[in-house]
């Protein structure tokens, strides 16, 4: 690891200012992705700005039909939160499937969504629930946030502060985990709100995406059978030693079916 300047941010403004004025500044929340990256010398930031000391960045609240989760909220906290379990149980479950207990004690929702690893779990929920991402300067709709592999709508020095998740009538999340890392080979988040259904897929492509054909079929009939015959195209999907693009395409249908069964049950 190369050395860097380190600063405990005192506020969101302070964090943004430090990162933007540095020659190469980086926010750090849980460090569960950033520190391994630094160890491998895949990044060489001049300044690392710790968000753990920023007041108000962590926390969970429910306001009306919205579940609000602060960017610094750790996976273990989301997993154990009575508010999340009541409002969107599938989201609490998702958080509990990330990595292992030690990783969940550090990793945060903001870090995960900012990073947009193609195999990360939270992006499926952000897309599947149609969340709104709040930053230090604007709000971004989930549908225009994920741009590509490790690429998002965030600008340099833009800080995620919180997420607003609309509370659905029912939702389910199923993932086919990589047996070694537990990252999603494919994960599917399904949410039904009134007559509208959203299907968010992670792991399969360069970043999380929706499957409109499944959404339409599920809006007409919210049952596993409705998606059984719907296949996504393997074109452009990820292919690696863990799974070919064809296998991932197959898994999207299987995980979608199971997620619907979970949501319906």
């Amino acid at each position, binding site marked *: 690891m190369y050395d860097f300047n380190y600063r*405990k941010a005192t506020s969101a403004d302070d964090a943004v200012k430090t990162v933007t004025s540095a020659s190469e500044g980086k926010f750090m929340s849980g460090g569960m992705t950033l520190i*391994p990256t630094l160890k491998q010398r895949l990044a060489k930031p001049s300044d690392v700005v710790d968000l753990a000391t920023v007041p108000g960045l962590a926390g969970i609240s429910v306001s009306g039909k919205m579940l609000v989760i602060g960017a610094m909220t750790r996976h273990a906290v989301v997993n154990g939160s009575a508010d999340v379990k009541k409002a969107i149980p599938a989201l609490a479950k998702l958080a509990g499937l990330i990595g*292992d207990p*030690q*990783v969940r004690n550090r990793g945060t929702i903001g870090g995960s969504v900012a990073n947009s690893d193609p195999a990360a779990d939270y992006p499926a929920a952000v897309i599947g629930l149609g969340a709104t991402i709040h930053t230090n300067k604007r709000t971004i709709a989930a549908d225009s946030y994920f741009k590509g592999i490790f690429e998002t709508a965030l600008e340099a020095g833009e800080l995620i502060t919180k997420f607003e998740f609309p509370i659905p009538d029912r939702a389910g999340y199923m993932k086919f985990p990589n047996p070694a890392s537990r990252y999603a080979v494919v994960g599917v988040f399904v949410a039904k709100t009134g007559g509208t259904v959203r299907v968010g897929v992670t792991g399969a492509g360069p970043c999380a995406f929706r499957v409109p054909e499944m959404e339409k079929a599920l809006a007409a009939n919210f049952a596993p059978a409705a998606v059984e015959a719907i296949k996504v195209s393997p074109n452009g999907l990820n292919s690696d030693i863990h799974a070919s693009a064809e296998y991932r395409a197959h898994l999207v249908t299987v995980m979608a079916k199971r997620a619907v069964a979970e949501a319906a049950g």
Partner: protein
Amino acid sequence: MPTVTMTVNGKKMSAECENRTLLVQFLREKQGLTGTHVGCDTTQCGACVVHIDGLPVKSCTTLAVQNEGAKIVTIEGLAKDGKLHPMQEMFREHHALQCGFCTPGMVMAAIGIVDRHKGEPTLAEKTVRHELEGNFCRCTGYHNIVKAIMAAFPLMKG
């Protein structure tokens, strides 16, 4: 270089270190607490697990400077007055180690498992196996580790 101060096993400890110094290096190299092991250095194996403010964390993936003012407990801090912690005692009783390399992290993670489920009447074997996700053992096949944790549960519940 910054000076970092934390409370380790009940004692205040300070040392100068670089910003890039990992907590595990701070403990092993600055404080001589070599009970915490480094198995992989890639956040996978769990040999380096310590408790930070009561929660098990992989000390190879947090910076010493992040932990300014924190309360750290390592494997060396578990035994009290020459008496092993119940989890250590059960690891011994159930032969839950062979080479012993994974053991310090395993014991710290195991205490974390019991802490998380203390309020429940029983601890399921499935839960223990699932929550050992982040700890690798290359010797025992996990079986006796799981037995030791199951046996420590009622003792730690008190």
